[in-house]
């Protein structure tokens, strides 16, 4: 059973970080849906709800998403819903249910870097920056590769552009965790393919993305790129699927993702 000894609701980020740094078991509280299932013994739980971080807004050519915005906000907010073919909204809309998404925060979802995360996969094919209180701004990909350090995720910043994108998540049943999820995007003939729930954390299929960007998008090249993605990434086995099946799915979903992006471009 998870326990909390104390609780803080700081008014300033500095204060929040101070408390966080003070003790090893002091922890930032997100929506608590996942935290609740853990056996963590938390010293001071730090609630960021007084810091006005629940925004999704335009900020100098970026979509800025505050750490305390909920998945449901991301799903329904006009700005996030309309950008990039709606993949931000799509990537979260099948996570459990509305009530769950009204509680779970974007900040906690990204900071936790869960392997099964649908959102991370979608964010990876966009020009996403993570802003940490202490660590500053960095591309999402760098953040994901960074070792865990105690910090506060303040906001995400996604560069606005004409980027086309598609997201798909393969689930055995509608509200299950994904067996595999795939996001594909394209801007100025530069393609990005990301694959998550492998079941490891989402990564970009670099070689496949490059191959696709350099070619002419013929049917054969699409197939080839999808195969490269399946070959270059590593897959694992868990209760939802074997590595071999995930690899096969990867090829299919990547191919479909590319085709969907091409289709929305031609529309």
């Amino acid at each position, binding site marked *: 059973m998870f326990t909390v000894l104390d609780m803080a609701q700081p008014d300033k980020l500095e204060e929040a970080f101070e408390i966080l740094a003070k003790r090893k078991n002091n922890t930032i509280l997100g929506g608590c*849906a996942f935290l609740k299932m853990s056996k963590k013994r938390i010293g001071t739980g730090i609630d960021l709800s007084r810091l006005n971080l629940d925004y999704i807004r335009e900020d100098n050519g970026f979509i800025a998403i505050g750490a305390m915005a909920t998945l449901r906000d991301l799903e329904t907010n006009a700005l996030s819903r309309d950008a990039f073919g709606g993949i931000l909204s799509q990537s979260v809309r*099948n996570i459990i249910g509305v*009530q769950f998404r009204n509680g779970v925060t974007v900040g906690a979802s990204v900071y936790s870097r869960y392997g099964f995360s649908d959102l991370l996969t979608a964010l990876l094919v966009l020009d996403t920056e993570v802003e940490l209180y202490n660590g500053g701004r960095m591309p999402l990909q760098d953040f994901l590769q960074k070792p865990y350090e105690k910090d506060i995720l303040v906001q995400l910043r996604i560069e606005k552009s004409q980027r086309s994108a598609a997201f798909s998540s393969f689930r055995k049943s509608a509200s299950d965790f994904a067996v595999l999820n795939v996001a594909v995007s394209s801007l100025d003939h530069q393609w990005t393919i990301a694959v998550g729930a492998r079941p490891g954390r989402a990564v970009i299929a670099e070689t496949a993305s490059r191959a696709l960007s350099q070619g002419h998008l013929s049917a054969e090249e699409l197939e080839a790129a999808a195969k490269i993605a399946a070959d270059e990434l590593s897959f694992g086995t868990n209760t939802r699927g074997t590595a071999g099946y995930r690899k096969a799915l990867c090829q299919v979903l990547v191919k479909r993702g590319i085709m969907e992006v091409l289709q929305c471009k031609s529309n």
Partner: protein
Amino acid sequence: MQIELIVNDKSVTWDIEKDEFLADTLRAHGFLSVKKACDTSCCGLCTVWMDGKPVLSCSILSMRAHGKKITTIEGVAQAAEEFAHILTAEGAEQCGFCSPGFIMNVLAMKNELDNPTEDEIIHYLTGNLCRCTGYMGQLRAVKTYLGVA
């Protein structure tokens, strides 16, 4: 610790433990309509509204309800009963254990969505599990309630 909040339009001050969750606090104060069934934030039975939005009260630390407005089915009895009559006319409450949370989400949906399609209804209510009815009767009831075909 103490929290001050508004429950069903009444201001209350409650003593709580710091790691207590809202569903337990509400039950301890007599709001027995709030049921729990999963322990993993995914069944929807404990649905209440926080500041008008449907949330899982089993996963919200009670201290975070400080200063908030909480609504249970007891607080929207009239609207809930209107729908409950339609639900029971279908027989779609069956064991009834999931009904209060389900009804709270149906009412929330009615407040949030205008003329939802069948797909939108199903999507909005996905987080409410039911093992008795197979969902079809609930869908018929919701469509009757919303006056959609």
